[in-house]
């Protein structure tokens, strides 16, 4: 069950079978979710997601929109959106395999309303966990890359200007403050300029 203290999770349903979608919408509402949009796969999912900004997209396993969703959620080009998939007659092993593979995709056997809520909860939790991990990894990578840029600019300044480390660092920091730029961006500019003039006497 969603936490009643927070706003309800906003769900988008993509299904080419209107009867099934209506049934699922009903059970989601009963469980306290807000179904903000129900559409078939011909409507241009990407634009609908941008317009409605759902927390979760539920899509039929057979939908052609799956490639769009995979690009969106796994490669994170757009808004992070958990994706849950369902298909009638799916095997329990399929679900387990999908979960093990770390795809935020779950296959629901049939549409037992009792099962929808816990599956949504788990899918969203796992998706958030995954997004947090990705973010952390990206930040670490960025930090490392930026640190090495600053180091490199500093070394270039030291060798070409005959400065000591402290002078080089302070010069860069002053430039960054004067130009309201990040230290890494200043370092990038310095490297570009100094490497260009490297062969000059």
């Amino acid at each position, binding site marked *: 069950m969603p936490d009643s203290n927070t706003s309800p999770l906003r769900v988008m349903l993509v299904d080419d079978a209107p009867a099934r979608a209506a049934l699922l919408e009903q059970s989601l509402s009963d469980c306290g979710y807000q179904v903000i949009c129900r559409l078939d796969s011909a409507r241009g999912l*990407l634009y609908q997601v941008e317009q409605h900004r759902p927390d979760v997209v539920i899509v039929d396993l057979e939908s*052609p929109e799956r490639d769009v969703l995979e690009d969106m959620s796994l490669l994170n080009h757009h808004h992070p959106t958990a994706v849950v998939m369902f298909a009638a007659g799916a095997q329990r092993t399929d679900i387990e395999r999908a979960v093990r*593979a770390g795809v935020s995709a779950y296959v629901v056997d049939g549409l037992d309303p009792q099962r929808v809520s816990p599956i949504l909860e788990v899918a969203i939790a796992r998706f958030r966990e995954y997004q947090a991990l990705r973010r952390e990894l990206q930040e670490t990578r960025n930090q490392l890359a930026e640190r090495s840029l600053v180091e490199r600019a500093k070394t270039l300044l030291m060798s070409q200007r005959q400065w000591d480390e402290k002078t080089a660092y302070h010069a860069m920091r002053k430039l960054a403050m004067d130009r309201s730029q990040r230290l890494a961006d200043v370092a990038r500019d310095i490297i570009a300029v100094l490497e260009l003039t490297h062969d000059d006497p």
Partner: protein
Amino acid sequence: MTPEPESATPPEKADLCLGYVPLSDCLPLVAAQQLGFFSEEGLRVSLKAEASWASLRDRLVIGQFDAAHMLAPMVLATSLGLGGWEKPLLTACVLNLNGNAVTVSRSLYQRLQTHASHPVYGLAAAQALAELLRHDATPLTFATVFPFSSHHYQLRYWLAAAGIDPDRQLRLITLHPAQMADHLQRGLIDGYCVGEPWNSLAVAGGFGHIVATGHDIWQNSPEKVLAVTADWAARHPGSHAALLRAIHRAGRWLDENRRQATALLQDVIPVPPRVLERALLGELPLGPEGPARTLDDCLVFHRYAANLPWRSHARWLLAQMRRWNQLQGVTVSDADAIALACYRPDILRAAVGSGALPEIDEKCEGSHTEHWILDTRAGPLTMGPDALIDGIVTSE
């Protein structure tokens, strides 16, 4: 030396289910089925159309499909665990070379014309786009079919060859092939790179212009492959070899029987035959007006040793994945190992006989600007050119 076909190995499994996405290049599977080539190999094959590349891959990975018509880079990406699943896949057979094109909307085409001194085609079209982007800040959106697809890399290659940064100067999105033309017509996107017949459909409808074919970007580049999981291949060498023989034979038939091929395709794709036949016959109208471009190699199923999975093709695709930051955390040696594990020319040679196939696994991509001759045990083999649009030659 690779042995001649082992006719003695019977299929371990005769009932096979093969997945495909309805596109002109699923024809090798359709033809092998319709012409009885599978059954002559002792196989009972059922073909199942899939609505998305993601579900095609999932069904292959979980074993609902024995083999599938798959985007060549998807075999590499899935084996590397990029984009969800991590499962070793391999291919022993390329299904076709070429078949893609870049199409832009009529209005974008008209704007490109004001920035071009040459016909808006090929590299000149990308250069006109670069010029347009320098003068006009209106954001443009281009679509490809999947992040790990030849279409994605071809579009990016074409853009970058004109100095366009695809990540900063444009918006690239993913769309299903069958939705491309509709989205272009509705003005939701400005252009796309997709396989046939979805370029010709926009041209025939009067709302799209083809500005480059995939063949213009990288001549005779690999498109779809027959993908299997490495597990499946290990457990079913006889079934795999039988599939490869039937598909290899279907490719040869398709290259020689283009009109009949169009008829076969009619049952698979709900598009008028006069549109379906354009790429198959190599007469490709580029826009609503004007003459067709004659391009014999618009879709190649067999000639030029098309079915051989060249390891140099795998390396080129991996290089594009690295170029566009899809291989973060994958070392160069890991990527190299994947190229060797996923691309298996040795399995094709063992299945169909090495005589008429090249004995080498790599060629110098980009170095052949004309047709060239490769010696095989069965005699000289005519190979197609493999030049890139910017003239770059990959290192051997």
